[in-house]
């Protein structure tokens, strides 16, 4: 697992209180990890903090899986 993927997973585990082995790159925040729309807003804020990236609302709306988040961050972090 890449360093980014690892750090993304840790944030998801901490924020959603889910088992680490459920947080695969394919996992959907809402369907697999029990998140609601507000949890995703909070996760996006946490990713922005952790990686120093800005994730605009229209991009955030397209992030539905853990892998989507990892990919976006890898492509946009400085």
């Amino acid at each position, binding site marked *: 697992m890449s360093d980014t993927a690892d750090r993304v997973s840790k944030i998801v585990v901490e*924020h*959603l*209180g889910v088992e680490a082995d459920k947080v695969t790159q394919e996992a959907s925040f809402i369907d697999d990890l*029990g998140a609601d729309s*507000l*949890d995703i*807003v*909070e996760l996006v*804020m946490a990713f922005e903090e952790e990686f120093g990236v800005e994730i605009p609302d229209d991009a955030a709306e397209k992030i539905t899986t853990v892998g989507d988040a990892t990919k976006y961050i890898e492509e946009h972090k400085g």
Partner: protein
Amino acid sequence: MRRVVVTGLGLVTPLGGDVETTWANILASKSGASRITRFDASDQKCQIACEVKPADHEYGFDPDKRVDHKVQRQVDPFIIYGIDAAGQALEDAGLEDMSQELLERTGCSIGSGIGGLPGIESESLVLHERGPGRVSPHFVHGRLINLISGQVSIKYGLMGPNHAVVTACSTGAHSIGDAARMIREDDADIMLAGGAEGTICPLGVAGFAQARALNMSYNDRPEQASRPYDKDRDGFVMGEGAGVVVLEEYEHAKARGAKIYAEVVGYGLSGDAYHVTAPHPEGKGAELAMRMALRKAGMDPSDIDYINAHGTSTMADTIELAAAMRVFGSDLSGASMSSTKSAIGHLLGGAGAVESIFCILAIRDQIVPPTLNLDNPDEGTEGVDLVPHIPRKRPVNAVLNNSFGFGGTNASLVMKKVD
């Protein structure tokens, strides 16, 4: 008329994370007060409080037992205390598995006096220091007073009335009284009722200190600071926690063979119409509330065996006592009257519910809890049993609980043993 009984109890207090631990410590005359550990209080005028203790403490509270990790991260402490106390009460009443039909007849009335002050304080700093885009999406619903009732209803599937009282330090008593009425009015068969508070944060302590309501001269002797009726009292000690009871329609409770602790028979409410923080100097509002509660109960003053006083360890203690003497007679007709705030501090919006539970346990165990630190009773207390220092074994068949709040809002509850 539909009768209302208490069939379950739940407590989170500075003396325990459950009912039996708290009650054992109350009867052992322990104090929950200490110097504030939650934050650096060295610049505060008042540096002590009765904090709910961490899980690894001898009588600590473990939020992981009943509150989801995700919820814990999103909400203020008062909501966590409230959810746990509600869960305890449901379990105690044997109501973990309810039919859909019963869930639709079960509601919540769990309030708070102030609500999520620590979260408002910290998120306000986030706003100022880092801008609106960093404010948590959970900020609002993690602080709102009715979100104990909301969270409990979601967690347990309760679809009856969903309500929350906000009457400062009378909240817990009003919550129980109002919920009992909802059952009597046939809005529900079961109600989870109570109150919670968690405002031990820099802004909360400073605010009450500036209002001259908190003690300030016992920073080096925290356990002696809460001393209702004592000549040397100088303000309340802030507490935190929650108390929730299961109220149930009597025939319903009987039919399912529930354990019945007591019946809620009287409820009195009044306003002081006097001052925002100070009680009416003659305790007129307090007197009206007590008289109404007795009248509704159809009881004489002499029927009451124990009064759990509002008794905050402020000058108001003797005003309340004088009002009680006018209602009950100069010797309170033989009733014992104590303030358990001497042990757990003032739980503000949680106080009336927690203290009602102590009243119920007094009936169950035929023992009244003590008033700690009552070394030199103030003038005007002569001839009254204020239960100094240690609990007193005595017959307890009927009890009255007083709660009074800022804004001049008063509530009295009368409960009695069910034969």
